[in-house]
């Protein structure tokens, strides 16, 4: 199934926007975790946790889901396919893994925001360290997927080679 060129361009544009937006939102999240780690309990420290929660639920998650969906549309609607080229398949696997970890982080981030907003004493340092590690990992994955998308390194999967042989056989 190949999409018309105009639709393909639109899907690709949406994919680039959501993917780069996802990466940028994770960088913003990391800035907040560093603020939360380095600042002692203060208005800025208290504000960082609800900001992380909002950023996660209203920006990072929608952008991640949007990136996945537009990526699926772009690959399936073009000659690249989803499972023909290693760079596309690898990108899909990394994005799926990053999204799964992200979805598992929503609840802990929400709990940290609630704890920071409460009046009582609470030690959020372990939780914040965990968020920083997860966000750093996510950032590395997203930079990797961006590099793969730009460089498109060579390599056909077994399925891709078979499809190529079939296409060559038909053209002869």
């Amino acid at each position: 199934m190949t999409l018309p060129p105009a639709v393909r361009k639109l899907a690709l544009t949406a994919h680039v926007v959501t993917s780069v937006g996802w990466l940028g939102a994770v960088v913003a999240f990391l800035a907040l975790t560093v603020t939360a780690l380095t600042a002692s309990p203060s208005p800025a420290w208290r504000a960082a946790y609800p900001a992380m929660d909002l950023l996660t639920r209203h920006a990072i998650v929608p952008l991640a889901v949007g990136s996945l969906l537009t990526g699926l549309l772009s690959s399936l609607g073009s000659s690249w396919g989803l499972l023909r080229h290693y760079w596309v398949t690898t990108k899909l696997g990394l994005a799926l893994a990053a999204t799964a970890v992200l979805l598992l982080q929503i609840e802990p981030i929400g709990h940290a925001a609630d704890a920071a907003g409460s009046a009582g004493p609470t030690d959020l340092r372990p939780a914040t360290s965990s968020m920083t590690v997860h966000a750093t990992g996510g950032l590395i994955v997203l930079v990797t997927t961006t590099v793969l998308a730009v460089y498109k390194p060579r390599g056909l999967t077994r399925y891709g080679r078979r499809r190529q042989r079939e296409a060559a056989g038909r053209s002869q």
Partner: protein
Amino acid sequence: MTDAVPGTPRWVKVIVAVVIVVVLLAVVAVLTGIGGEHGPGRHTSAGPVAAGPPTPPSQRA
């Protein structure tokens, strides 16, 4: 478009190896407790925070 290269490219093997190492490290961290307690309980272990249930996402700003 990329050329046909027989076999799995080296860069794919490197990424797969890195992913396996990261997953193993995560499993070891969870099993040994190095990564700390996982789950919501880790955020509610100190002070009166543990008394109340978390605010549902729909009620947050």
